[in-house]
């Protein structure tokens, strides 16, 4: 993974130092909360319902065991002993004292981490594919470009006060978009040009929130060296022309939509023509320098293990078999596989991990996966370079610390925002509903029978839980002070990205999980074969059968 040099290190050290001064000025009363707000806001420090929340950047989700141990230490020392992995591959801690934040930032800087631009109307953490560098269907590792974008966007002097927050995602697997690039302000796909040369397809204007939209292609092939000039051109057009009069119309998707993608692209291209010559184009040596950090770890040379992996799924140890089947994918290197550690455990909010579990995960990464972990945008973790032969031992160790749920990609592998339990903007709670779903649909055989299906839930229209792109989406709303839940069907965040549609009137808190049960029954009854996924059945039969089952009796 990327290692800081003296320059990178100095930037995070100086940031920690700067923020210490800002906090001191706040604590001494020299500046009021209103003036402190703009300072903390670009540093991932939010005022939540009960306390401050600090969001730490995990660049493109990649972290070392050493960094994970530092998280554990921070959660134990300055928080309530747990942290929360988010849908943007970041980590949040929910209860730090303001006085402690400078210390936390210094500890983070000590392990090459920071909270820079994890909030505010600026360019946020660039996200990517959790299987980057190991997936068999990958064209090229996207992480070097993510790192290049991270450096370019860190304290970019021109783009710190955009109309609205700005999110970029990169995928190197054109055939299977695991980074949901079509749902980002800018989505970047590594593609092959006509003569087999590599470059980028650039999509702009995706995003969820109040006005969900799928990103549109602005440039179908961009030579690699032009990445930063092109991004800078997009950002400048947006910074100058994006709406600033209405927070809810300020994302770039609204600008793209208002201008039309052709006109937007024309403006970007015009700016790009001018920027191109200004020294921002990448050099081959910089691409190589950053790329070298993402070279594969020293794998042993082992015989092909696909049959072995297959055998494990069918073996006599049923729990292990199910876990391998659902949580493990084959690796491009023979003898290895990539393991997803589910953070969707009954009794714990999705994405939450205790300090003890963090320490254990760091150990497991050291022992089984070259000391690295990845956070996924599904709020899970990945050990990406595990020997197939080690799977039984790893499974046992994960089970011993409560991290062996075999539900990846299944109904209970849910995404849910913090909701009314933490968030000041929420209309409704989401964590208790998630818990109820976990309890109700607990049977592994039933989950496997349902196959690939996603539930995503947000506590309000801001859509942090991505409910529009859940196969089943749940949105918390407020009806005269009472929490209600709207049900949506048919969303997807993959290559076939689509937005879900609202089924009908909202459900009360004690009805919503029953409604999901009804939806699942309709699917099981209607699917053409056990292989037909929920979303495909929905696309084939449409909303009516679901509607009828849900509301028909009324």
């Amino acid at each position, binding site marked *: 993974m990327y290692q800081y040099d003296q*320059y990178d290190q*100095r930037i995070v050290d100086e940031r920690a130092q700067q923020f210490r*001064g800002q906090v001191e000025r706040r604590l001494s009363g020299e500046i009021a909360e209103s003036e402190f707000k703009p*300072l903390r806001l670009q540093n991932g420090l939010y005022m939540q319902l009960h306390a401050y929340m600090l969001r730490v950047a995990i660049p493109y989700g990649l972290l070392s065991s050493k960094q994970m141990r530092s998280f554990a230490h921070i959660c134990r020392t300055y928080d309530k002993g747990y942290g929360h992995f988010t849908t943007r591959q970041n980590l949040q801690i929910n209860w730090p004292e303001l006085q402690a934040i400078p210390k936390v930032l210094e500890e983070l800087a000590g392990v090459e981490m920071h909270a820079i631009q994890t909030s505010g109307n600026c360019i946020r953490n660039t996200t990517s594919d959790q299987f980057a560098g190991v997936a068999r269907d990958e064209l090229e590792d996207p992480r070097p470009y993510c790192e290049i974008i991270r*450096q370019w966007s860190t*304290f970019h*002097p*021109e783009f710190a*006060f955009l109309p609205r927050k700005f999110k970029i995602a990169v995928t190197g697997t054109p055939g299977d978009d695991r980074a949901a690039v079509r749902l980002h302000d800018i989505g970047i796909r590594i593609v092959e040009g006509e003569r087999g040369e590599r470059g980028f397809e650039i999509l702009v204007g995706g995003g969820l929130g109040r006005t969900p939209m799928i990103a549109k292609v602005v440039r179908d092939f961009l030579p690699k060296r032009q990445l930063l000039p092109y991004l800078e051109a997009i950002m400048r057009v947006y910074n100058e022309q994006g709406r600033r009069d209405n927070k809810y119309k300020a994302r770039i998707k609204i600008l793209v939509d208002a201008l039309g993608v052709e006109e937007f692209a024309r403006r970007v291209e015009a700016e790009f023509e001018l920027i191109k010559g200004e*020294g921002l184009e990448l050099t081959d040596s910089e691409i190589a320098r950053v790329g070298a950090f993402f070279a594969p770890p020293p794998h042993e040379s082992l015989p092909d293990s696909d049959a072995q992996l297959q055998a494990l799924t069918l073996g006599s140890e049923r729990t292990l078999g199910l876990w391998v089947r659902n949580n493990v994918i084959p690796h491009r290197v023979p003898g290895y596989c990539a393991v997803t550690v589910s953070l969707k455990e009954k009794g714990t909010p999705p994405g939450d991990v205790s300090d003890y579990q963090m320490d254990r995960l760091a150990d497991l990464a050291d022992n089984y996966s070259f000391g690295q972990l990845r956070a996924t945008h599904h709020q899970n973790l990945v050990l990406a370079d595990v020997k197939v032969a080690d799977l039984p031992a790893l499974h046992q160790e994960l089970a011993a610390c409560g991290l062996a749920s075999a539900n990846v990609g299944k109904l209970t592998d849910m995404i849910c925002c913090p909701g009314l339990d933490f968030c000041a903007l929420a209309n409704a709670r989401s964590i208790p509903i998630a818990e109820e779903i976990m309890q109700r649909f607990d049977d592994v055989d039933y989950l496997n029978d349902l196959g690939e299906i996603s539930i995503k839930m947000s506590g309000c229209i801001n859509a942090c839980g991505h409910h529009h792109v859940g196969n089943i989406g749940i949105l918390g709303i407020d009806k005269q002070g009472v929490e209600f839940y709207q049900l949506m069907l048919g969303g997807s965040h993959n290559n076939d990205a689509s937005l879900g549609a609202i089924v009908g009137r909202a459900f009360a808190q004690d009805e919503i999980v029953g409604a999901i049960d009804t939806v699942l029954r309709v699917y099981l009854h209607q699917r053409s074969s056990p292989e037909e996924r929920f979303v495909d059945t929905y696309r084939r039969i449409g909303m009516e059968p679901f509607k009828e089952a849900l509301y028909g009796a009324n």
Partner: protein
Amino acid sequence: MELIKRGVVVEDGFKRVADDGELSSGDVLVSWARLQAEAASLLARSGRVGVRVPNDVDLEALAPYVEQLDLIAIEFPTYTDGRGYSLARRLRERHGFRGELRAVGDVLRDQLFYMRRCGFDAFELKEGKDVAGALEAFREFSVTYQGAADDPRPLFRRRGG
């Protein structure tokens, strides 16, 4: 009026003249509307001329004057409105403006570093702010990743070894 100029606190040498105010001798700062209306006579004066422009000024319209202006003051209506940064870079990097580029309006200590990188060399802090204390803001960072108006080379073109 105190200003931060090239890292030190100085008195403003330009006199602000209202749109209906009389043009005294010496250096004057006028509105964009007045510059457009009276460009010929303004620029023919012996004193230096500055203009205060909104951050969404039509750059095409401003461009013809750029060479003859000694000061362009860009308004920040609120610190969260970042259009002035792009405008500053365009003026410096595209239009080769070499005069004083001043940030005015909701200008706070913690934006100074970004502003300087985008080409501002003078800063009129928001009323009531500690001008001397704000000077520290320029020293908070010693490394930058991007090329900008202050140095067009991104760090990857400067990184030694």
